[in-house]
């Protein structure tokens, strides 16, 4: 039996919930036990948003054991295997879920909180944030998903899918591109989303 935890973090309106739901459905299709939660109280009001996706993956001959397979919908501290941050300041917020084994993808994009406007606070740039997180895990990557989404699609709506493409290309998630593709089609997503995931995967391969 294996557990796998994905945390998507960002700001309301960035598509955090959408990519979380996609991952939950894709896991269910694979026959995983899927649990998760969303923190979305302020999702439409530029508040912080999270989606936690947790899989229990049983071996072929393994039976469901409630003592080992019951999951909290919230990821325990340090247990996130994959963290996708669609906004870089939000990566700092979720640091307690990250351990030395986690993979962290940070979109090079910032949305200034109003508090920063009112009090003239400066956000650390994305690179500084990435370096801070490297104190916890070496597996931190900055992705220019917003710039790519803007260039390829004319707006920022595909950032979540591009980030997912990068995560898939890392080859550490228990999901393949095909798993996601089939699920996206089932959920009635447009072809642009699939194209965005492919672009993300290429982005990753280009960097390696």
């Amino acid at each position, binding site marked *: 039996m294996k557990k796998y935890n994905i945390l998507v973090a960002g*700001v*309301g309106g960035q598509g955090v919930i959408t990519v979380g*739901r996609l991952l*939950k*459905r894709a896991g*269910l299709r694979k026959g995983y*036990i*899927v*649990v*998760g*939660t*969303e*923190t*979305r*109280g302020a999702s*439409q*009001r*530029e*508040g*912080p948003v999270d989606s936690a996706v947790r899989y229990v993956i049983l071996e072929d001959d393994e039976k469901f054991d*409630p*003592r*080992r397979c*019951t*999951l*909290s*919908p*919230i990821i*325990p*501290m*340090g247990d996130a295997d994959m963290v996708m941050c669609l906004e870089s*300041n*939000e990566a*700092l*917020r979720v*640091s*307690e879920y*990250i*351990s030395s084994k986690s993979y962290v993808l940070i979109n090079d994009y910032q*949305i*200034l*909180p*109003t*508090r920063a*406007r*009112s*009090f003239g*606070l400066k*956000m*650390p740039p994305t690179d*500084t*944030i990435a370096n*801070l*997180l490297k*104190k*916890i895990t070496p597996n931190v990557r900055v992705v220019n998903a917003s710039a790519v989404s803007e260039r390829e699609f004319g*707006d*920022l709506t595909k950032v979540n899918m591009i980030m997912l493409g990068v995560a898939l290309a890392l080859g550490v998630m228990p999901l393949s591109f095909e798993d996601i593709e089939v699920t996206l089609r089932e*959920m*009635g997503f447009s072809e642009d989303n699939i194209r965005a995931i492919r672009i993300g995967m290429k982005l990753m391969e280009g960097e390696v």
Partner: protein
Amino acid sequence: MSMEEFIEEILVDEPGKKVILSGNEAIVRGAIEAGVSFVTTYPGTPASEIGDIFSHICRKISGLYFEYSTNEIVAIETAVGAAWTGARALVAMKHVGLNVAADAFFTICYSGPNPGALVIAHGSDPGCYSSQNEQDNRYYALHAHCPLVQPSNPQECKDFTIAAFEMSEKLDLPVILDANMRTLHGLGEVTYGPINPPREGKRFVRSQFKYVNAGFVALSNKKRLLDRFRKAEEYAEKSDLNRVFEGGSSTGIITAGGAFNYVMEALDSLGLYDLPVLKLGIVHPIPRGLIKRFSENLERIIVVEELEGFIESDVKRIAFELGLDVEIVGKEYFPAYGELNVDLVVQGLSKVLGVKPKKNYDEIRKLATEVKSKYIPRDPIFCPGCPHRATLYAIKKVVGDNAIFGGDIGCYTLAALPPFNMTDFVICMGAGLSIAAGISHIIKDKPIIAFIGDSTFLHAGIPGLINAVYNNANLILVILDNRWVAMTGHQPTPATGISSTHEPTSPAVKLEEIVRACGVRFVKVFDPYNVRSAMEAISEALEHEGVRVLIARRECALQAERREKPRRLELQKRGIAAYYILEPERCQMCEECYKNFGCPAIKKSIIDGEEILYIETARCTHCDVCRQICKSGGPAIRKTIVNPHLLGV
């Protein structure tokens, strides 16, 4: 998935089908499988979606009635009325909604819901994610002698809803289904059961000894209530909603609801698989026989539960009454505030058991704290184009900080945050007005201004307004009328002009007519998008005495945008576009629009080494307020239209 596809999926009669649902969605499915025929609600996070889904599906099921009620007590009274004709009725609300419903709730327990059934589905909010408190409503169940069940995942949300209807009908008691935010917003796999046709109400049979709670009837109903509750205890003894996970250790755990998941994962994380675990599904009444059997070979019981030590007290009482020789611990190891999680449970359990957690929590926390110290907290803010922002801005321009501001529950609670800081207290729905009235009887040298939303006004504001007028309070009430219950997902109100099931109707009430009927002489309606007229209305109100009401009327920008944006995009395809632009060469960087108005569509960037402000066109809703308030002569902000000739005449 579109709403249509979702409705199809949640209504499909395919027993054994597995789907992924949230707790709220699973409660809806459970109620449908149980043959619910009557649903009422007042929306409140985390339980709003229950009513919202019913508002969309009720037309698909013949014999199913749904309404958005004006508040929770109205909702529960309406629901029990249906139950008394034989219907299976569901009322959904958030935990604090039960405070509003409490007056009716206690006595409904006296009468009982038979011949029908009444399930109160309610969402609690440990951690106060979207509430003014985290009260533990299990004490309502205790106080009112009302059975209460706590599911721990979406599958149980469905199954427990069905069980709750059966219990309610059999015991002639309402049943509370109490789920926390994580369970209701959490997602998990649910296996469908068969759908039963709605059990509709048929006739009301007069029975004064059951329904007329006055004098000796009330007293005899109280006695009947105690008898029914004893039956509930017997029922709970046999219920399979309570489950025991066997183990050989001399320490056992009792838990319930969301805490069960944390316990199981914490035990797994500690590598402890032999502690017996009793998971209570029915948390009130706790079955004594089961507690006795569970504790037989135990030296110690650890009670792990979210919020207060409710189960803990009850188990201690039962242990005392039965003379059980077992140590019982609980809240001294697990916090009674905020939500629990696996890590808190691991740390609590390891302290009780004297074992070491596998994780080095100190180190994780130290590193995370260091990294997190660079995080700038992200307050939720008013959306671009939000009329509340414009109203608050205009008020601040006129009165400055020299006023006392009464806040209330809704999007406009955000007035408390920068850049406005225009809320001095928040208690509960409707409280802002009456607290302001109280203050106005003492404080005479400052304007006293209370805010209330349109839905909150209809929910809890009217008695307070009548009282303020009758007793000569001296204040300005600003009704922020954005036509919807915006904070909880845009449910309609009686003043919206949309029925509970989304059909256009004429508005049932007009706010200004209600206000006048309450005795208010000074009533002014203004459009917050017109800054000058808003400021004039506020100035005029300040010149008067007594209770003055200003109605700031403008539809929620999110709702307006849902209609307007597709139209704009369509025009864009034809090459016609309208934009608001901010011209850097004319802008004097006073930052009035950016800092003091604080519209999130206005942003800052650095071009050629110089700071500039710009408007993010994709987020701008064309509300025009920033143009009106622009201080740079000239004006630096204007609306521009590309290819207007293509529009024709």
